[in-house]
């Protein structure tokens, strides 16, 4: 990912406002997506804790209340179930709510509304009450957050039928996928990788890159040796690992960015693994019953006769998220990804985790 260059101003910018900054970080692209959605559709309403005057703790809603008023970008009481529950009612009345859960682990009080109503209302009413709402959740670690500020909660939402689960890994996708999520007539849990909020990219609001419908993965780096399957906060790790493998090992790793966990773009993943014959799933979430378990099972089922090695996972340990001074031991890094790649039976000699020094035991981060 390159560093931002040049300057720009958004189309149709309000002359009364201060000159719009170049939305070159992911946080700014998300802000821009919210702003454009609010401008394009009067039924879009943004609300949550501190999203108004403050602009959100990550400033993703910065300036929206000033531009669109407190009725369109609203500070709510501090109550996640209430936020999601009232969003259901607003969606029932034909609105398109976009709510913010302040942090991954702060979203849990609203879990019942998500699981028992938001995900089921369309089905319950045979399509009469769709739930076109977007639940933005900053997620994942790597920002030095104290407890309850760094969870990877995606597996909970993936396990709930009726929810889409979307997570961007690039600035362009942050804008494009959030716009698609807000426009979707289905509920979307939109997971924003906190540690990528400030990552810059060459992106211009006048020419936002086209993003396909939700549910389409993308090959970020082509390669023929093995496939790294990843999403969100782990994409930069995989890209770096792929560069290192090419430089040091002469291996060309293909990197697939899922972009949405539900719907899961099985075709893109399967096509890649059938080409390369080897696959590693990389994510921060715990490995046991984590997203990688589902992905590895599906890849194994559909690519069995193409596989040269078992599908491996590089995941967070199966532990409560560590305190900030220890999180570097938990998070998948380039070395762990490369270690997993090294175990992909390059000499047709499969070594189990125990034989290779215990790395692959069920409690470990590499399997």
């Amino acid at each position, binding site marked *: 990912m390159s560093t931002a260059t040049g300057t720009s101003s958004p189309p149709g910018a309000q002359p009364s406002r201060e000159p719009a900054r170049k939305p070159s970080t992911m946080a700014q692209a998300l802000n821009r997506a919210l702003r454009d959605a609010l401008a394009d559709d009067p039924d879009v309403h943004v609300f949550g804790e501190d999203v108004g005057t403050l602009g959100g703790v990550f400033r993703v809603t910065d300036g929206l209340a000033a531009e669109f008023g407190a009725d369109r970008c609203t500070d*709510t*009481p501090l109550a996640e179930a209430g936020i999601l529950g*009232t969003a259901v009612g607003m969606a029932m009345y034909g609105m398109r709510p976009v709510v913010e859960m302040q942090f991954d682990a702060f979203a849990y009080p609203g879990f019942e509304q998500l699981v028992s109503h938001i995900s089921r209302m369309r089905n319950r*009413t*045979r399509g009469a009450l769709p739930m076109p709402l977007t639940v933005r959740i900053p997620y994942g670690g790597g920002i030095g957050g104290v407890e309850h500020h760094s969870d990877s909660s995606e597996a909970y939402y993936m396990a709930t039928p009726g929810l889409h689960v979307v997570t961007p890994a690039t600035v362009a996708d942050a804008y494009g996928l959030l716009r698609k999520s807000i426009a979707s007539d289905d509920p979307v849990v939109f997971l924003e990788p906190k540690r990528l909020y400030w990552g810059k990219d060459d992106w211009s609001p006048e020419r936002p890159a086209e993003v396909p419908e939700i549910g389409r993965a993308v090959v970020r780096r082509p390669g023929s040796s093995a496939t790294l399957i990843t999403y969100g906060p782990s994409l930069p790790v995989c890209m770096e690992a792929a560069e290192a493998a090419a430089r040091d090992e002469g291996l060309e790793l293909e990197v697939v960015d899922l972009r949405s966990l539900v719907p*899961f773009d099985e075709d893109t993943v399967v096509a890649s693994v059938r080409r390369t014959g080897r696959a590693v799933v990389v994510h921060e979430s715990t490995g046991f019953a984590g997203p990688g378990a589902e992905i590895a099972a599906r890849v194994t089922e559909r690519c069995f006769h193409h596989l040269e090695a078992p599908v491996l996972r590089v995941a967070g340990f199966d532990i409560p998220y560590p305190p900030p001074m220890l999180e570097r031991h938990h998070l998948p890094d380039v070395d762990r990804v490369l270690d997993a790649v090294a175990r992909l039976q390059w000499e047709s000699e499969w070594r189990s985790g125990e034989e290779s020094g215990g790395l692959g035991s069920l409690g470990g981060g590499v399997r």
Partner: protein
Amino acid sequence: MTVLEQSGAYHLAPPPAWRPRRDPAPLMPDGEPFRLLGTEAELEGALLRELYGQLVRGRRFNEQATALTKQGRLAVYPSSTGQEAAEVAAALALREQDWLFPSYRDTLAAVARGLDPVAVLSLLRGDWHSGYDPRSTRVAPLSTPLATQLPHAVGLAHAARLKGDDVVALAMVGDGGTSEGDFHEALNFAAVWQAPVVFLVQNNGFAISVPLAKQTAAPSLAHKAVGYGMPGRLVDGNDAAAMHHVLTDAVERARAGEGPCLVEAVTYRLEAHTNADDATRYREAAEVESWREHDPVALMERELRSRGLLDDDGVREAGEAAERMAGDLRERMHQEPELAPMDLFDHVFARRTPQLQGQAEQLRAELAAAEAEHTGTAGGSGSTGHRTDDQGSRK
């Protein structure tokens, strides 16, 4: 006297951030449940007669639904027998454009609002989770998770107000539901947003088996309103005229922009929690009998007779009208519902995901195979097909 005070140099001022928010006195509920029946109050005869007809119909509906459960036509029925006055008044207090948010025990309120009883019973019959269109009927689906429908009512009423629409939402919950976090969050949001919502708590004495004393230490459930900054109203929930009066007042107050209100209807669940419950394990028969003396249908009949608004013919006519409704319901509920298994995949998302598409194809193939086997069984003899005729026809 402290050293500082003696010195005269130190005067403790109030904390700078504090100021009184509002006078709680006007928000306080009355000391006793509000009543109209049996008082000298001037009451509209036509309204009383309408309420009476609805009460008789509602009681008959509860009896019929309970019977249908015993006959295996409903999976379960949480009866509102004894609570008909609150159910009926909730429906009648609303205008056409208003929304009702019922809990699973409030089938009668939906029926009293004019919905097809068979459609309302869909959830409890089990042919689908909800059997009517909430948008056209302005009745939200019966909510099973307690109190979770209350924030929906707040959100909908808030949305309507933002759009400038004249819509009030009335949300129903039981005494047990007031202990849930969603009750608290809904009332708080409603008050902060001044959303046009009326919360109706039917305090029927029990949350399945747990009596109110183990549910709350509040002076009354209506008192809870005061902490949110909205008025609380305490009403005799078996007095249909009082319920109608207080709910209409609350609805129109909300409509006028004066914000939400909490109404506690003091009533009693005469039947067990559901047909699957045994109420003799947790309450005395004498207590139940004492409440039968305060039966909402009987109270209204007595009132109408004493005011000369009802005679034996009127009672018989109301009974016959209710019987026609029950007969129609009975007949239609004894017909097998038309089940559509492929619906299981059609409404999860606006469009099926590839994975759901694959699973739908799997089920379709299984159904086709079952159908073929069923057809073969019907044509031949001595088949040992493992699906019964009943299962086959349901597929």
